[in-house]
């Protein structure tokens, strides 16, 4: 809720806010953000603005340290993947491979991976600060990416059209060379992907 005239904009979702009014404030440029969580704020803002525009979302603002940028993006991916996991839980139908949702390996894998990623990305040991990341910790991002990618390889459906999540993830991974291209097995519809990558194997 933006206050009437003249007063400063308070970017808060207060209790009682309707869903459609959520985040109902003007966008802020990255330089104006003075909170320590500015990177996350910026990424989320861009996603809200247009979730298909993966290039803009992935483009770091000037002077932004790359390690932190990657880290915050990974956090955002895990966040959004939670939604995927929920959907998965809901719609898991008994197949030949498993009878009950309890046995569903995809659900297992998704939950475990997300929990594990949450643990690692939030661990004090590797990622103590959200403003600067040490070099050794940046290496861990690659392994997290691998695991998350496998979640995508388990399922890939119309959820993607709503959020372009896999699309964005693939681009993200390639942009920062967090995974080798041979591992990218999920068929991505985008032509840009095929253009930028040579010899990507498709499942």
């Amino acid at each position, binding site marked *: 809720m933006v206050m009437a005239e003249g007063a400063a904009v308070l970017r808060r979702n*207060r209790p009682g806010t309707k869903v459609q009014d959520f985040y109902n404030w003007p966008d802020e440029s990255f330089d104006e953000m003075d909170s320590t969580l500015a990177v996350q704020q910026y990424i989320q803002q861009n996603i809200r603005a247009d979730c298909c525009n993966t290039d803009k979302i992935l483009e770091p603002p000037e002077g932004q340290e790359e390690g932190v940028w990657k880290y915050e993006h990974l956090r955002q991916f895990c966040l959004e993947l939670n*939604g995927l996991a929920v959907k998965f839980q809901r719609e898991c139908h008994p197949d030949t491979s498993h009878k009950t949702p309890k046995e569903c390996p995809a659900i297992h894998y998704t939950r475990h991976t997300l929990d594990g990623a949450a643990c690692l990305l939030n661990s004090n040991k590797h990622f103590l600060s959200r403003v600067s990341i040490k070099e050794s910790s940046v290496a861990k991002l690659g392994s997290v990416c691998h695991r998350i990618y496998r979640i995508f390889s388990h399922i890939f459906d119309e959820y993607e059209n709503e959020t372009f999540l896999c699309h964005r993830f693939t681009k993200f991974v390639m942009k920062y060379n967090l995974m080798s291209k041979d591992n990218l097995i999920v068929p991505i519809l985008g032509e840009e992907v095929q253009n930028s990558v040579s010899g990507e194997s498709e499942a």
Partner: protein
Amino acid sequence: MDEQAGPGVFFSNNHPGAGAAKGLGPLAEAAAVSDGAAAAGAARAQYSLPGILHFLQHEWARFEVERAQWEVERAELQAQIAFLQGERKGQENLKKDLVRRIKMLEYALKQERAKYHKLKYGTELNQGDMKPPSYDSDEGNETEVQPQQNSQLMWKQGRQLLRQYLQEVGYTDTILDVKSKRVRALLGFSSDVTDREDDKNQDSVINGTDAEVKETAMIGKSELTDSASVLDNFKFLENAAADFSDEDEDEDVDGREKSVIDTSTIVRKKALPDTSEDRDTKEALKEFDFLVASEEGDSESRSAGDGTDWEKEDQCLVPEAWNVDQGVITKLKEQYKKERKGKKGVKRPNRSKLQDMLANLRDVDELPSLQPSVGSPSRPSSSRLPEHEINRADEVEALTFPPSSGKSFIMGADEALESELGLGELAGLTVANEADSLAYDIANNKDALRKTWNPKFTLRSHFDGIRALAFHPIEPVLITASEDHTLKMWNLQKTAPAKKSTSLDVEPIYTFRAHKGPVLCVVMSSNGEQCYSGGTDGLIQGWNTTNPNIDPYDSYDPSVLRGPLVGHTDAVWGLAYSAAHHRLLSCSADGTLRVWNTAEVAPALSVFSDNQELGIPASVDLVSSDPSHMVASFSKGYTSIFNMETQQRILTLESNLDATTNSSCQINRVISHPTLPISITAHEDRHIKFYDNNTGKLIHSMVAHLEAVTSLAVDPNGLYLMSGSHDCSIRLWNLESKTCIQEFTAHRKKFEESIHDVAFHPSKCYIASAGADALAKVFV
């Protein structure tokens, strides 16, 4: 070899001859002779002056080379010596700096203690206040051997004077008895734990005093000094005694404080008109100044020292002996006071007697000084250790004790200093604070809740801000609801070892996934078996809470999810659980309040919509004093009480609103006091307001924070209120006095949001806060 032999041969050959020219002749002859002889002889015979000269020069050159080498070596060694000396000096400096640092930290510790004591009792704690000024000046001297030896000397002198005054006062048998009893009591108290050496030490001291006293008692009855001067001295001693006794016996703190305060006031009154002090008295007083200062220095160094410290052993024993004397002094003082009333016009003993006294005392004093040098370093410190531990059982003074704990104190203080937490967390500076407050609580026996809270756990796992949290009613388990669409359950007893920070890290034991959007609120049922959460998807999810000891990586169990309560059409912002009826209350951005039966997954029992005249409900709570009522606060700034049975609005609590901007009157939270019929509301305009449920009147209103107040919680006993705000601070308030008793700075801002929720544990001593920075913090 040949060459060496050569010159000898040459010279011996030359000797009978004369002159250099002749030398050639015999040489040639010798050469000729030796030619006929062996080959070695032939080599020997070939001497020529140039050859010899060459040889000499060669030798000389060799010597020179060797000398040069030696010079170089010597220079190297000297350089090495200098380097090592420099290193040693550096180490010494380092040591000095560290000790200085220790003292500074201690100083801060004492200050904080004083502050806290003042805060708790409203009186000044005499303990630390006297020390800082002289301490700082002492610090300048650094704890070198010399000042300590000086101070030791001063102690000796002081004690001598003390003894002298004691005997001036005059010992009667009753005093002696009392004194010996007291001594025995103190000794008995300390001898349980102190070394035999110390006992002997003290015994000898006491015996010395006793013997002396008996002697001097014979010498003469009290030739008392000017009453005031002696009293002054006793006051000095009393003050010094108070220092030690403070440290010794916590239970006596209050008593001694009062006595000290009393006597100090008396001193001041007395000191002024006392112009008739003679030179001796002045000197004596000066000595006591040193005594006090040195005692202060001593106690500082005593408390600063590690077990391995060196000179400090000396000091530690002396103060122990002092303790005994102090006890004696107090008794004597009292006795003296009585006597003073009876007697008047007393004279000081002459100098000769003083000298005698000094001589006697010196003999006695040598014993304590001998002991430390005899004893090994570890023992005095260990003797100090148990005594102090018992003395200061309540105050965890990790400083004085084994070096490791001393270091940990330093580390702890460093870390606390380096932590992000602000003013309120100076409590974190002192390791002892928890124990401190414990001690006071035990002593005062006021309420079950501790008075100062310290951060203990940081819960990291969420990817986005945490909007709400709820404690399990019995177990040390917490559930957090976050904007990352998940809820996580944490067991506070399963902590992960964290390397750096003072607060421990906890990992979640379970993650609840079912919401399709940010989860905004969560409550637990009264037995902790179920929990309910509401989110932006308009659903209220019910969960069967898993066993707190579950393995986080167990297989997925879909039975955890009970099923959603469907009904709301917009974000569910508030939930409240009614234990009496097993009902759940919810309020939503769609403008309605709903009541649900938790036993089954079914539509709401009742819906209140009230045509939205009051606005959109932002928060709802049950009225504790009347289970059929609920209180809800609305976005337009109104708060009302409803009857759930009749579905009527009973009462609208008083609110004076002006017709200006909308958002400034937003009420973020309403809670009901657990025992009194009071409702408390947290406002966007930084206020917290208290209303009477029966009359609806505003009882109290206060500006509580620098920014909007977002959350409230009342402790289970109903004595304290906790409020969280977007100004990144949490405040604890005493509900009776409506004053803030503690403030924490916690959580960073995301956008302009900082702290979303705070909560007390219903049965254990935990408080928790939920932040927009995706962290939850737990304080104990």
